[in-house]
């Protein structure tokens, strides 16, 4: 079974037509990969479907806008994968 990062990287590669081998755990989705907000909706859609969760994009955006979080916390891919794992675990716990 592939890791969460691998699954996310594959989704990004396929959704945004970015070569898979250029996507690393350290990649910042916005600053390094150049993914814009509209493309990120497609990625969020695919992640939601693949993991059975709902990425809280609005909450994250609000936290960044309020200075309570940095974009790195949510959009560097290793961190995004960790957030996804947390959401999956929380969903499993509440099921």
């Amino acid at each position: 079974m592939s890791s969460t990062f691998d699954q996310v990287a594959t989704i990004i590669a396929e959704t945004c037509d970015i070569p898979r081998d250029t996507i690393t755990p350290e990649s910042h989705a916005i600053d390094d990969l150049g993914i814009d907000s509209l493309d990120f909706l497609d990625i969020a859609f695919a992640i939601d479907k693949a993991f059975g969760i709902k990425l809280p994009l609005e909450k994250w955006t609000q936290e960044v806008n309020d200075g309570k979080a940095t974009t790195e916390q949510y959009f560097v891919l290793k961190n995004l994968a960790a957030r996804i794992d947390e959401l999956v675990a929380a969903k499993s716990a509440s099921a």
Partner: protein
Amino acid sequence: MQLEYFHLIDRIVDLDIGEKKIVVEAQVPKQSTIFEGHFPGYPLMPGVLLIESMAQGSGWLLLGLLKFERMPILAAVKEAKVRGSVFPGDLITIEAGLSHEGSGFAVTEAKIRVGGKLRANSTLTFTLIPFPNPDMRGYMNSVAERVGFPQQAIAP
């Protein structure tokens, strides 16, 4: 349907909040300045207006699901297919269903039929924004009344 005003939905036939589906109808006008150019001698509903019709039908579904707390704005069109022509005078039926509700966005699947035959379909993505001002909220209320939005469907 008033093409020049982008009034592309005449009435809501059915809004099923539980199933997250909607059916709406619209009568394509027999005459319009749009048909004078598209095309002379062969008037045809433009494909982009069919897509907009599916977006507006989906929009009423989303407004219902969101209880008018947010405004859906078309953000992406995918897999749009115009499978057959729609002509002046045709009565179009649009069916739309919610396929995904994300955080701040939603995805619908919509179809247009004429006389039961599929003429177009698309997957549409919407961003869900707060109403930007009271004027727009008021305008949507007035349009909701015009298209017969079933307020009881979203009553608490």
